[in-house]
């Protein structure tokens, strides 16, 4: 990607488009969990690769912001690099990999381990914003179900899981109910991250570019993972400490390390893991 900074407006999108997106964001913040349709623009990166998140970031970024991008928890995966470079070039904003130094964090599929604070904005990339989509493929029908609060079907799915497997067999994109009203897809974060959604100090914005939807959680919103009284939601992770930093409270990636099926578990949040290692924590696989 080679582009001249001055050929495009600050953060790529024209001001009129940004205003349109900000209006959608404000509406989303006013009705937490409600999917606001917005006229998603064609971005210079493919649909499905974070165009919704990129548009939301473009609309909220100011020249004074410090921007961080993570994909699957890591700052250094190719798509995270690509999006970070995009905003370095088109907005000239400062970037960081340190969670606490960032004012805007765009993420795909993870919430950072370090608790976010007031004044930070977490922007999620969302592939399918409709939590009911795989139960009811019709947009016209799912919108009606939301507006009439007809969520029985959602629980039918959970019921079926338990009847068949003995557990709720949804491990990521685990549906939540927001402020007792809208059922929302938290994007494909592992359910381990679900408890962080509720009562968060930062603003959470969700952008789905291809599906043309924006939704939001204002700070300190009540977010409840759907479950049954006798089969309560459990935020699970691999039952190991991190091999590098020894953390026992972080979400882990499983890494295959040799041909014999040897494996180790490492923090998926690279910034968190490095921070702990710098502070002197060591896991059993660390050098």
């Amino acid at each position: 990607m080679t582009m001249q900074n001055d050929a495009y407006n600050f953060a790529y999108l024209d001001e009129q488009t940004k205003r349109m997106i900000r209006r959608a964001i404000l509406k989303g913040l006013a009705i937490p969990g409600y999917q606001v349709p917005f006229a998603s623009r064609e971005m210079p990166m493919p649909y499905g690769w974070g165009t919704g998140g990129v548009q939301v970031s473009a609309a909220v970024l100011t020249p004074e912001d410090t921007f961080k991008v993570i994909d699957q928890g890591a700052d250094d995966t190719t798509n995270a690099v690509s999006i970070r470079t995009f905003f370095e070039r088109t907005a000239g904003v400062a970037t960081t990999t340190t969670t606490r130094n960032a004012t805007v964090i765009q993420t795909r599929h993870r919430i950072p381990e370090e608790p976010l604070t007031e004044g930070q904005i977490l922007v999620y990339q969302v592939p399918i914003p409709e939590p009911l989509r795989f139960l009811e493929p019709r947009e016209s029908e799912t919108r009606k179900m939301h507006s009439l609060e007809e969520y029985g079907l959602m629980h039918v799915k959970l019921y079926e899981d338990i009847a068949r497997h003995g557990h709720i067999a949804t491990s990521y994109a685990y549906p939540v109910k927001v402020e007792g009203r809208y059922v929302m897809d938290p994007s494909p974060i592992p359910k381990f991250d679900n408890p962080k959604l509720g009562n968060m100090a930062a603003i959470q914005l969700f952008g789905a570019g291809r599906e043309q939807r924006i939704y939001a959680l204002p700070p300190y919103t009540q977010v409840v993972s759907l479950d049954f009284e006798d089969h309560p939601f459990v935020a699970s992770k691999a039952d190991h400490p991190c091999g590098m930093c020894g953390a026992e409270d972080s979400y882990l990636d499983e890494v295959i390390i040799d041909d014999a099926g040897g494996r180790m578990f490492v923090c998926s949040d690279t910034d968190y893991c490095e921070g702990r290692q710098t502070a002197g924590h060591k896991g059993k696989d660390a050098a």
Partner: protein
Amino acid sequence: MTPLLSVQGITKRYGHHIGCADVSFDLYPGEVMGIVGESGSGKSTLLNCLAGHMTPDAGQVVFDTRADGPRDTVTMSEPARRMLGRTDWAFVHQNARDGLRMGVSAGGNVGERLMAVGARNYGDIRAQATDWLGRVEIDATRVDDRPTTFSGGMQQRLQIARNLVTGPRLVFMDEPTGGLDVSVQARLLDLLRGLVRDMGLSAIIVTHDLAVVRLLADRLMVMKSGHVVEAGLTDQVLDDPQHAYSQLLVSSVLQV
């Protein structure tokens, strides 16, 4: 006594063609009303207008709601009407596939209405679903099987269980025995009669089968070309039909 359902002047047209015209009647709690007529007589159109699946061109369908008393369901807001549709009302389709989720287990099918009105205890939901399977004579071991593995009669009984589990006050049935073998029909009718009696259900049953209304309905309306040509107590209409069309209808069934 306040009627449970008071229908006034229901009319539905399709262009120049009349679906049903100026139909009025009252249904009292615990009463079963049969609507008979040949296909194209307008009985299904009428049922769909009454159940809120279709908007009539004219008329009122006043239902005695639990909370607010008699309310016209035609002009009621859609959320309120859909709420009725999953609480106080039930609808049994002729084709069980239209009324069931074929990809969901029998237990899930029966449990859906419970969950839709807020049930959140898996064990309770499952227990109620299993209990209802028993009441419609489906073996409890089938609770986790999908209806695709059920016979036609079982599917229809499952649909009935799914509808009745929340204790509705009014059940709409569209040809509930249609498409089933005669022996299966008899068993289903027997079951329905038992449920109607035990639960004190009010129901509106559309059928072309006079045996169904003979067995289930307290009162009867005969429809032809969108109009009600005769109405009265079931035995009266069937044993002493006044209108020429009713006489034809009754005699044709006697020949069977």
